């Protein structure tokens, strides 16, 4: 298997006006694999959006190279193949909807590729089904909720048949329902459709569901690993002022006070399990609860 995206020793600097040369990325290397759900977290200015924009040639590295399925993003003749392979979804749902009817919006990208009408119908229906928006084909986008608009934007990318979707803070402007709708959608695309997902977010509660978490700080990869590996480093996270899930924070405080908890839990269920183990009894009711 080869990576969908390979970032090799990439540095990126730009002219920051009165701040002089700004080094936004410093020698970053990473790979994104098919079907992988990767969360990138870090503060504003840490370089995460700059990194994301390198993944489909919206930005080109100052030093180093980015390969999309082996295609170097510097090669202008491959630009459209690269952008078709890696699609982007941005923060503000209102800025990325171009048509006045949902299905036309989803069809916009493939139409530009010259996809024939019957194939188009199939792609649009399939894309809307994958984001759970079947039935909204004729709706007006401005009447939809934020979460629904973001899912339409994702459908527009899916209709291009990408191998990877990069989402730059797609949940930042959404309410809790909208956030969980988008999260559920991207998790489904990664695990069931094999589409690699690069999910940039400020919400740790979303990052815990990723296969891998990459923490950016000052243009570098500060931490990288499974959510559990990353969240098992409370001192580092605190130093980076990152927002950890409340149950992880509670476990860290209890451990610091001498409580023998075995790990840093990521979810309510894990924390409840650990407390149960410590108290020496299993849960009273054993039915699994779905959340």
């Amino acid at each position, binding site marked *: 298997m080869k990576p969908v995206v390979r970032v090799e020793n990439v540095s990126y600097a730009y002219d920051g006006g*009165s*701040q002089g040369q700004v080094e936004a990325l410093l020698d970053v290397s990473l790979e994104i694999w098919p079907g992988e759900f990767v969360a990138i977290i*870090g*503060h*504003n*200015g840490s370089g995460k959006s700059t990194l994301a924009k390198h993944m489909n040639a919206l930005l080109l590295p100052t030093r180093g190279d980015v390969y999309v399925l082996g295609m170097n993003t510097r090669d202008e003749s491959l630009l459209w193949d690269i952008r078709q392979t890696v699609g982007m979804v941005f*923060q503000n749902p209102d800025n990325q909807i171009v048509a006045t009817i949902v299905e036309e919006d989803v069809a916009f990208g493939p139409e530009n590729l010259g996809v024939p009408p019957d194939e188009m119908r199939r792609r649009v229906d399939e894309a809307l089904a994958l984001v759970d928006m079947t039935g909204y084909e004729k709706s007006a986008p401005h009447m939809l*909720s*934020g979460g629904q608009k973001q899912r339409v934007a994702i459908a527009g990318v899916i209709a291009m048949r990408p191998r990877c979707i990069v989402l730059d*803070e797609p949940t*930042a*402007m*959404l*309410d*809790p*329902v*909208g956030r969980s709708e988008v999260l559920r959608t991207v998790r489904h695309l990664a695990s069931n459709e094999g589409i690699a997902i690069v999910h940039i977010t*400020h919400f740790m*509660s979303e990052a815990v569901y990723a296969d891998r978490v990459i923490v950016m700080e000052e243009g570098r990869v500060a931490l990288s690993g499974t959510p559990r590996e990353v969240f098992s480093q409370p001192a580092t996270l605190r130093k980076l*002022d*990152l*927002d950890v*899930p*409340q*149950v992880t*924070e*509670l476990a860290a*405080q*209890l451990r610091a*006070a*001498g*409580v*023998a*908890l075995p790990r840093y839990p990521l979810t*309510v*269920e894990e*924390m*409840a399990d650990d*407390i*149960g183990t*410590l*108290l*020496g*009894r*299993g*849960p*009273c*009711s054993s039915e699994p*609860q779905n959340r």
Partner: protein
Amino acid sequence: MARQALTDVNLSIDEGDLVAIIGKTGSGKSTLVQHFNGLLKPDSGRVLVDGQDIWGKGVALRDIRRKVGLVFQYPEHQLFEETVALDIAFAPKNLGLSDAQVDDAVREAMRIVDLDYEEFADRSPFELSGGQKRRVAIAGVIAMCPKVLILDEPTAGMDPRGREDVLGEIQALHEKHGYTIVLVSHSMEDVARFAKRLVVMEAGKVVMDGDPREVFRHRQELIDIGLGVPQITDLMAELARRGYGFSTGAITVEEAREILLPPLLAASIESTGSAGPDPCEGRCGHGLR
């Protein structure tokens, strides 16, 4: 196509209160707060500020807007001046104050939002961090010397550092400077930590109004209307569901820690000795001990 955004809302905000309004997108939160300073006019009903009907005869909306300052969503998008000081001075200048009075108002507003005058006054607002930009925008409203400050999703789209920065600022405005504060929020965790009172909106109506602890007791109702409870409250509910007899009221990490630390510490110390009483009272047949 007229849409009913608010229906028969009754609410009063007391002086010195710190109220959070929660509700999913489209529930009417922003529409409601825009009535508080006369940006929107109700189709029916009244809005009173200091007992005065703001749409009544002889009431100048300008005076109402001085009393009730509104900080919009993404207020930093409205920064436009070349320097921080000029941006904050914009509103007081329009009130017709003298240059000296405007300067005083700017310095005072910057002091209140904790932006050092010497360091920031002459900088471009566009060079600042997200948290700093938002503080400049809040200072622009504070420079009008309002009694009530309304903030519509003050931490939306910010990174964790920026969120803490702005939330800390809001808490200081309330505690140190005595502002009455109304904030619209999507973060149950944040409102649990800060608000003294929660107002829950759903489909244009106020469906709950009370102490945060009381409101978060209604976990399922909140989930049903697209909200939720802080994760820590969820944990305590899950422990109760599993039959452990801990108190379930915790809405912050600190509160949960206080409840859980003594029994868990005891269990850790005596992990080789006998455990405490079985909360399931043998019903589950764990066969302990």
